[in-house]
C-alpha cells in the first residue's frame, strides 16, 4: 500500500466491558471511552477533526445511531462517518480513519466502535445476513462447530481438545490482568479436563467455555498525522499497513474443495508487501479477533502461515502467554470481551498500547517493535493490521 503520509495512534480509551451496562445509555457508555482516549492523547474534543463511528447493523435494532450518539462522541459540528462491515467493523473503522489521515483530508481522526449486545438479539441480526432465497431459513447465527471438528480430525481428539482448552485458559489468565475485561473467570489449568467435558455443548465440540462473550462496551482510538502525532505523544504506535479481505456470503460455496482462508490470504499479502519472511520471529505480539478458542487456535496457523502443527506447539509450549515468546491477546482477547462493533477496534487499540508500552498490568514484558491486530466477521472475513514502534 502506498501511503501519502504516516499515521500514528496517539490515544486509546475503553469503557468497562460487561454483560449489562444498564447504568449508562449508549451515548453515555461511548462517552467513557471517548473521554479516556482524549485524556490519553492529552487532547480536547476541539483537537479532533473528524469522527468515524461504527457498530453492527440491527444488533440493538436502532437505525443511524451515529446521529444521536453525537451527545457522547462530541461529533457536533464535525464531519462524521458511519461504517458498518459486520464483525470486522471495528477494524474497518481503523482502516477508514487511517485513509482519512493518510490522504491528508484530516489531521486528527477519532474512531469509535461500540456495542450493547444485551439490548438486542444478535442471532436475529446475524441471520439476516444470509441470502434470503438460499440460506436465510437455514442459518443458525454466529455459532459453528466446523473448526472444532476439523482440528479434532486432523490432530486427534485428545490433543485438539487439550490445546483448545489451554488456549482458553491462557486467555482467561490474561483477562485477569485486564480490569476492563468482561469475563474474568479465574480459570486454572487443572480445570481443563473437567471443562472440556462438562461445559455446556453449543454446536458439536464447541462448548460454552470456548465461545466468546456477549458484551456491552465501547472503544475509542485517536489517529493523527505524523506531524500532529509527534506534537501530542513521544511514542505513537504507527500504522505500517493493513489489508481487508472479504469473501462471498456463503460458507459452503466451494463445496468440499480446499480453499485459502481469508486470514491466510490476508497475511500472505500483507507480509509479502512489507518484507516479512518469518512472521513468527519478526512480529512481537498479536491481538487476534478470536471468537472462540477453537478458532483462536486454528487461525494462529493461518495468520502465521504454518502448515503443520507448529501452532499447537506454540500453545502447548506456553509461547502465546503474556510473557511468552509470541504473546497472543494479553488483553484477554475476544473470549473475554466482545462488544462486537468495538471488538476489532479493541484489537488495534490493544496492539497500539503494547507498542506504546502503556497497557498497564497486561503489558508484555518485552519491547514491542512490530505487532499484528486482526478483525474477523461475516462468513470468514479478515482485516489485518501491522503496527510498528518506529515510524514507517
Amino acid at each position, binding site marked *: 500500500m502506498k501511503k501519502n503520509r504516516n499515521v500514528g495512534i496517539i490515544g486509546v480509551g475503553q469503557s468497562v466491558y460487561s454483560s449489562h451496562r444498564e447504568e449508562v445509555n449508549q451515548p453515555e457508555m461511548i462517552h467513557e471511552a471517548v473521554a479516556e482516549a482524549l485524556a490519553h492523547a492529552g487532547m480536547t474534543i476541539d483537537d479532533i477533526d473528524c469522527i468515524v463511528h461504527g457498530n453492527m447493523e440491527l444488533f440493538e435494532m436502532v437505525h443511524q445511531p451515529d446521529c444521536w450518539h453525537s451527545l457522547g462522541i462530541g461529533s457536533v459540528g464535525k464531519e462524521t462517518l458511519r461504517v458498518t462491515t459486520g464483525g470486522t467493523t471495528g477494524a474497518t473503522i481503523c482502516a477508514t480513519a487511517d485513509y482519512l489521515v493518510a490522504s491528508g483530508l484530516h489531521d486528527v481522526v477519532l474512531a469509535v466502535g461500540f456495542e450493547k449486545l444485551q439490548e438486542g*438479539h444478535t442471532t436475529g441480526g446475524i441471520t439476516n445476513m444470509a441470502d434470503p432465497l438460499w440460506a436465510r431459513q437455514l442459518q443458525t447465527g454466529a455459532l459453528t462447530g466446523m473448526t472444532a471438528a476439523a482440528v479434532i480430525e486432523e490432530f486427534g481428539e485428545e490433543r485438539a481438545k487439550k490445546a483448545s482448552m489451554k488456549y482458553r485458559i491462557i486467555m482467561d489468565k490474561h483477562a485477569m490482568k485486564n480490569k476492563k475485561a468482561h469475563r474474568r473467570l479465574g480459570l486454572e489449568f487443572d480445570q481443563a479436563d473437567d471443562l472440556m467435558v462438562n461445559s455446556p455443548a453449543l454446536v458439536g465440540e464447541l462448548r460454552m467455555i470456548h465461545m466468546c462473550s456477549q458484551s456491552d462496551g465501547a472503544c475509542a482510538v485517536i489517529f493523527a498525522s505524523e506531524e500532529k502525532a509527534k506534537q501530542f505523544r513521544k511514542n505513537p504506535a504507527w500504522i505500517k499497513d493493513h489489508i481487508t479481505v472479504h469473501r462471498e456470503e456463503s460458507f459452503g460455496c466451494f463445496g468440499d474443495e480446499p480453499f485459502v482462508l481469508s486470514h491466510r490470504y490476508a497475511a500472505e499479502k500483507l507480509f509479502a508487501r512489507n518484507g516479512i519472511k518469518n512472521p513468527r520471529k519478526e512480529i512481537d505480539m498479536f491481538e487476534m479477533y478470536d471468537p472462540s478458542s477453537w478458532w483462536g487456535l486454528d487461525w494462529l496457523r493461518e495468520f502465521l502461515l504454518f502448515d503443520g502443527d507448529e501452532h499447537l506447539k506454540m500453545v502447548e509450549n506456553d509461547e502465546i502467554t503474556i510473557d511468552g515468546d509470541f504473546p497472543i491477546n494479553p488483553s484477554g482477547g475476544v473470549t473475554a470481551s466482545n462488544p462486537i462493533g468495538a471488538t476489532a477496534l479493541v484489537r488495534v487499540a490493544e496492539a497500539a498500547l503494547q507498542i506504546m508500552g502503556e497497557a498497564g498490568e497486561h503489558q508484555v514484558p518485552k519491547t514491542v517493535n512490530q505487532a499484528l491486530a486482526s478483525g474477523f466477521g461475516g462468513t470468514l472475513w479478515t482485516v489485518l493490521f501491522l503496527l510498528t514502534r518506529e515510524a514507517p
Partner: protein
Amino acid sequence: MNTAKDDCFVVKGKLALPYQYFAGKTGSRFIISLRDEHKIRGLKCEKCGKVFVPPRSTCDICFENIADKWVDVANTGTVTGFTIIRYEEPHQPVKPPYVLGLVKLDGADTPIAHIVKGVALSKMAVGLKVKAVFAKKTTNSIMDIDHFQVVGDKPKFELGYSYEELEVGMSASFTKTISETDVYLFAGISGDFNPMHLNEEFAKLTPFGTRIAHGALPQSLIAPVLGMKLPGLGTVIPEITVKFRKPTYFGDTITAVGEVVEKIEKKKWVRMELRWTNQKDELVAEGSCLAIPPAAFLKK
C-alpha cells in the same frame, strides 16, 4: 429488455428483532421524577448555561460531563415547532390526525417532542403555550407525560366569520313563535301601547280584524342571526332596510333569514339579503343590510 414477471418468486419474510434499551442512570432519574412527582427536570451545563430537556449526561457543545447538574423546569412551555400527522399506521401512539410538537419547557433551552392537544388543527401554531398533562398510568417512559395541552391564549369568545371567511351564498336563520306575552313586553320596551296590538275589541275595527304584533318585533328576530350566527359575534350592522309585506298574528312562527349576497372588497364589508317568513311560508318582510364582520386579527 423482457420485464415480464411470470413465474418469478417473491420470498416473503418477517424479521423479529426484539430489543431493550438501557436508559442509564440519567434517563432513569428523569423518568422517575416524571412518574413519582410529576416533575420535569433537566441537566444544566454550567459552562454554557444551557438546560437540556430531555437530559443528557454530556453537553454536546462544551463536551462537559453534566450528569449531576439537575435543575427543575416548569411543566409549562412553548411550542417551537410542530407537524400534523394525517396518515395512519400501526406504530403511532394515537389515532391520526394528531399534532406532534416540539415543546420548549419554561426554564429549558432544548425542546422535547410530544403530542400536542387542545387546539383545532387549523389553529395549531408555533408560539402556543402548553402544559404537560401526565398519564394516568405509568409506563416508565416519556409517555408518562400523556400529552401537552394548549392553554392560555385560547380566545374567550368564539368570534364570528371574518370577511375572508365569508362567501356569497352563506346563510343563517332564527325562528321563534310570537306570543301575546312577547307583544305586551315589546309594548313596554318601545312605549308603543297602540290598542291595535293590545286591545282585541279595538283591533276588530282595523283592516286586520284582530290584534297583530308590532312590525319591529319580527324584524328584531334578524338581530340574533346577524350578531350571533352570520357573520356572528363581533359584527357591526351600520345599515338595515326593511319592507313589511304581511302582518304577524299572535301565535305565528316567524323565521328570519340572512344571506350574504355581496362582498364589498374596498371596505371589507358584506351586503346581506334579509327575509322574514311565517309558518305558512308567506313573506312577512324583506330587506337588506350592510354588515362589518369581526376583524380577522381579533380571531388569533
